[in-house]
């Protein structure tokens, strides 16, 4: 990618450090073990996780949080298993996603997961599954008790966390830009 130095954000490394704790992006020595094992790098030539760590060190916050690339990571944790410096791209990308979401940039289609968690206490909803032969299957069909969960109690506890605000903010989401 072309470097635009004016886009540098000097506090980005500090911000990621705040989220990562002891995992310091500056410790990365660009050995490339992460990228060489990355499944997304296999199918997208422009996704190079070690470069995301490098761009973070360079403070390219604007580029990183507004673009789609950080949302490509499939979180398979292969880079975590491989990283010799304990600062795998997964961890850095995780921190960047939090910063992106805080700034209002997050991909679509994820609101319903959170909404379902809030409403039903599960990210999936109890359902009647209709099979190819039009038979109806539920938990009860297989002899399981109904999935009654104490959603009232959960909501009451979570009301004091950031969750209600997050759900509100997701509705006002800004669009993430596509990478060329």
């Amino acid at each position, binding site marked *: 990618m072309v470097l635009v130095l004016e886009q540098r954000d000097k506090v980005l490394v500090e911000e990621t450090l705040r989220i990562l704790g002891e995992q310091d992006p500056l410790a990365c020595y660009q050995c490339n073990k992460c990228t060489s094992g990355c*499944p*997304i790098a*296999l*199918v997208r030539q422009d996704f190079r996780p070690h470069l995301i760590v490098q761009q973070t060190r360079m403070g390219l916050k604007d580029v990183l949080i507004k673009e*789609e690339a950080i*949302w*490509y990571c*499939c*979180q*398979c*944790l*292969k880079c*975590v*298993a*491989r990283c010799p410096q304990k600062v795998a791209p997964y961890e850095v990308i*995780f921190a960047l996603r*939090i910063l992106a*979401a805080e700034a209002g940039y*997050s*991909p*679509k*289609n*994820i609101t319903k*997961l*959170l909404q379902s*968690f809030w409403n039903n*206490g*599960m*990210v*999936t*909803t*109890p*359902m009647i599954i209709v*099979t*190819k032969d039009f*038979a109806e*299957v*539920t*938990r009860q*069909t*297989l*002899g*399981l*008790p*109904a*999935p*009654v*969960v*104490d*959603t009232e*109690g*959960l909501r*009451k*506890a*979570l009301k*004091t*966390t*950031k*969750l209600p605000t*997050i759900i509100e903010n997701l509705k006002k989401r800004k669009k993430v830009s596509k990478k060329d």
Partner: protein
Amino acid sequence: MGDLLMVINEERLEKIPLEGPLYIFKSCVSSNVYPGIEACTRKILESLGISVVDTDQQTCCGGLTYFTTISSEDTFLATVARNFSVIEEIASDMLVICNTCFNALHYFEKITEDFPNLKVKVNEVISKIGRNYNEGKVRFWHIAEFIYKAKDELARKIKFKLNGLKIAVHYGCRYLRACQEVAIDNPESPTFLEEVVETLGGTPVKYKEKDLCCGSGKMQRYTARDLSLQITARKIESIINEDADLILVVCPSCLAVLDNAQMELEILERLDSRIPVLHITQLIALLLGFDPNETLGIQVHTTPVTPFIEKLMENATEEG
């Protein structure tokens, strides 16, 4: 070389309980989409003479929304602590049937150990609903490691042997890689599932993309469907190339992706043939003789499991 890496964490294995009462931690995908996984887990425990306790108070582990960074740390911590507090009233050990749930519980323990003040904070949050969580009161075990420990006993109890059927195992990302500190095998070249397959009479298949993600990529299925499908296609093609009879997974999300994506890939003409996918609990329950529809719930799978069951039965009859 391979043998050098075959190190099972014996110390942990020793501690896995083979006695009840055990609690089965409910997972979102298995509870509502593939209920057969939970039903099979119950039947396996029943066959081993282990009692099961249950509650209707447990919610989602909180992991999916947190690991995909759409919820917050305090939400995640409160959700896990509340679940622990619910379960510690009825059991001291639980079995986890999903990699993400296992990862969530493990991660919770790890960060509350690193930052003890979080324990106080999180108990303040759940005290508002009259709950309190006690650290370490409930121990949790992955169903795959539990089955690994019980494999010999299960092999004695099964009604059908795999008789050399070719099984491609898929470990998933969030048990071995995310929980290296506690998992029973190493994340880079694990073999414990192959051992289970061999013990049950099957032939584990070597395939190129064994350590590739299923394509779920946590939220990838929602946010970058095309990328997700490309990964899944790569995985499944590599398994079909080795002529496997079944894909064996240990996580309901992996099951959902590998099972459903095959139909999409077929429509997109990326795949010519299909291969059945089962969760490890479903395979064991099948071999123990439980009903494919009434217990395994194979009728909800989009990729038919019957070709595998037919092969299994054919082999069984040949053996007499």
